[in-house]
Every structure is written in structure tokens, then in C-alpha cells.
């Protein structure tokens, strides 16, 4: 899974994070390093779709939180990916 928007949603699923924390988290759990342009492109799109929202912060490092709609979308995508993985695994076992 290398879709930056899904990776950002997955990163925010367990709590609020700012940009660098997301980049670091995604690299650890997915083994994918998102460049700054890619990461903020995804953040911009997700915020426009209201799937995440930026929280107020005194620091320059603004944390983001996944919204209800964002969590719902992530659940759908994970279920869909799960079906693909399950099917692939079954077919590999049959072969």
C-alpha cells in the first residue's frame, strides 16, 4: 500500500500527529518514506475532503486529527484491501 492519503489516515488512526511525526510513523509501519511534497499534498487533499482536520497549536508543528468521515473511509478501504489480501492468500495456497 503506497497511496499517501491512506498512509496518512492509517497513521492518524491511533492518535493526533504533526507532519514529521506522520512521516516518521509511516516509514516505520509501512517502510515507505513520504517526501515533504507528497506528505503535504496528501494532507491538503485530506483536509479539503474533511477527512482530517488541523488542530489549533501554539507551535509551528500543527497536529492533525482524523474525522469521523475519514475514519469511515479508512475502514472501507481497509476492508477492501483485506478482501484482496484474503483472495490472494487463498489462491496462493491453492496453487
Amino acid at each position: 500500500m503506497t497511496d499517501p492519503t491512506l498512509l496518512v489516515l492509517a497513521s492518524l488512526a491511533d492518535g493526533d500527529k504533526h507532519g514529521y511525526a506522520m512521516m516518521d510513523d509511516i516509514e516505520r509501519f509501512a517502510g515507505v518514506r513520504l517526501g515533504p511534497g507528497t506528505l503535504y499534498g496528501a494532507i491538503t487533499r485530506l483536509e479539503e475532503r474533511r477527512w482530517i482536520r488541523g488542530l489549533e497549536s501554539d507551535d509551528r508543528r500543527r497536529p492533525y486529527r482524523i474525522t469521523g468521515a475519514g475514519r469511515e473511509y479508512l475502514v472501507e478501504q481497509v476492508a477492501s484491501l483485506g478482501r484482496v489480501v484474503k483472495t490472494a492468500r487463498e489462491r496462493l495456497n491453492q496453487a
Partner: protein
Amino acid sequence: MRRWIGWAAYLYPTEWRRRYGAEFDALLDDASLQWLDLADVVRGALIMRMTTWNSYWKTGAMAAIAGAVLAAAASFAIREQYVAVATVQLVKRPDAGGAPDRVQFERYLRAAESGVLSRDKLIGLIQDPDLDLYREERQHMPLEAIAEEMYRKHVRVFIYPAPGGLPFRISFSDSDPVRAREVVDRLTASFEAQMTREPGDLVLHVLEQPLTPVTPLYPARGSVAIAGGFAGLTIGLLSVLFWRRTRSYPVLLPAETRAFVYSQVGHGGYSSVSDYIRELIRADEQRKSSAHS
């Protein structure tokens, strides 16, 4: 690296920078940046421009600037080449008299050249530990291939017309200016030695000893940046064309609806029909998002 990427971040639209600029800068301060991140930020900025701008020339101009910046940055990865040059002249011995004969001169020169620049002689220079030429190439290329490359790309012997004599130049290009001069010194000495062995009445005079070059011949960073600018312009315009073809949806409207839309654009402070439609979609998204939460 941080500075280059910081500059590239200015390629983002002003609106975007107003919203995300501070936190984006904070991310750049925290992350350990790589060269690939420069391309990533430029690409991100161009995509953001294409999704927010309506004019082709602005996108093209921004892509041209981005191309020039990237090309200039890439030119620093190219090894600089310095060229040292010696000017020598073939003249008739004083006791021989008469004007130099061009045909005879060229025959002598080619004979000398085939001796001085023979594969064995060049391999001798390449293997000279004092010169340490082509260190990296020697790790993975046969000496014959390096000598061939040296002859084809880096050594030049060329005649140029001048009154009263038949001068020619011997040049060599290398990433190290001192080494470039030393190689030309050696080649000039070899030419002198070779000419003394040739039968005939011509002798070699050195008119200008090679100097250690101060400025590199290439990469010419200005030219590289200009070429990058043109490439960026082309890619930018093609990308925006492609972007619009794949992300625009024709909508058929009856005449009265069209009139209403135009009146909304005119009176509602929207810059275009697209702007108005985007605002309607955003409002719909917001309404549905509020209904979910």
C-alpha cells in the same frame, strides 16, 4: 539541501503557503532531507499550482523556473572540467631557409601525433603514479578503453592558421586543473622529443607554455539552467494540458441555467465558472461531512 528545498517551497501558491507554510518549514527543519526531496517538493508545488491556477502561462512560467532550478542544482553533480593549452609552432631550421611548407608540416605533425598519442604512450601516462589519471575509471575499465576515451574526449591537437608560421595547440581536459597542465607539459615535451627524431628541416618551438586553468570549461551552469528552464516550460505546459484533459468533465446546461450560472459568477465574486462549481461541491461535501459526524 535544506536551503534549496526551502527555496523550492516558494513555488507553492501563496494561499497554500499562508495555510501550510509554517508547518511545512517546521517539517523541513525536523526531517533529514535528501536530494530526492527537492524533486518531490517541486513536483508537489507544481501539482498544487495546476489544481489552483487557471492560466497556462503562469503554470508554464513556474515549471520553467522549477526546471531551471533543478537543472542548476543537478549541474553541481557534474564534475567540473578544466582545460590546459600549450601553443607550439613548427618552423624551418635557420640553416634550411625558405618558408614552411604546409603539406610537409601536416605530414610531420601527423607522424609525431601518431607516436605521442599512440595507445601505448597514453596508457603510460594513465599509469604514471605522479599523475594519477582516471582513478575511478581504472577501477572498472580496461586501460585500452580508458586510453581510447582519453584520445577521443580529452586530448586535442589542432592546427590554427597564423601568419608567419604553422602553430598548433595541444590541450587536455581534466577535473583537476594542475593535473591538466602537467599532462599538457608532458605531451608538449613528447612532441618536442618526437620531432627531433623525425628526419627533415622542421623544429618545434613552444610559443605559449600551458598555464594552470582557473575557471572550468564546463559544466556551463547558466546554459544548463536555461536548457532546464525550456525543458520545464515544455513539461509544465504538457502536464497542465494532460491534467485538464484527465480531470475536466463537460457539463451540459440548458440556456436558462447557463444564464443563472454566469450571473452567479458575475455577482458572487467567483473568478470563473469552475470556481463557482468548486465552491458548490465544497459546500455539499461540508454538509455531508457535518451530517456524518
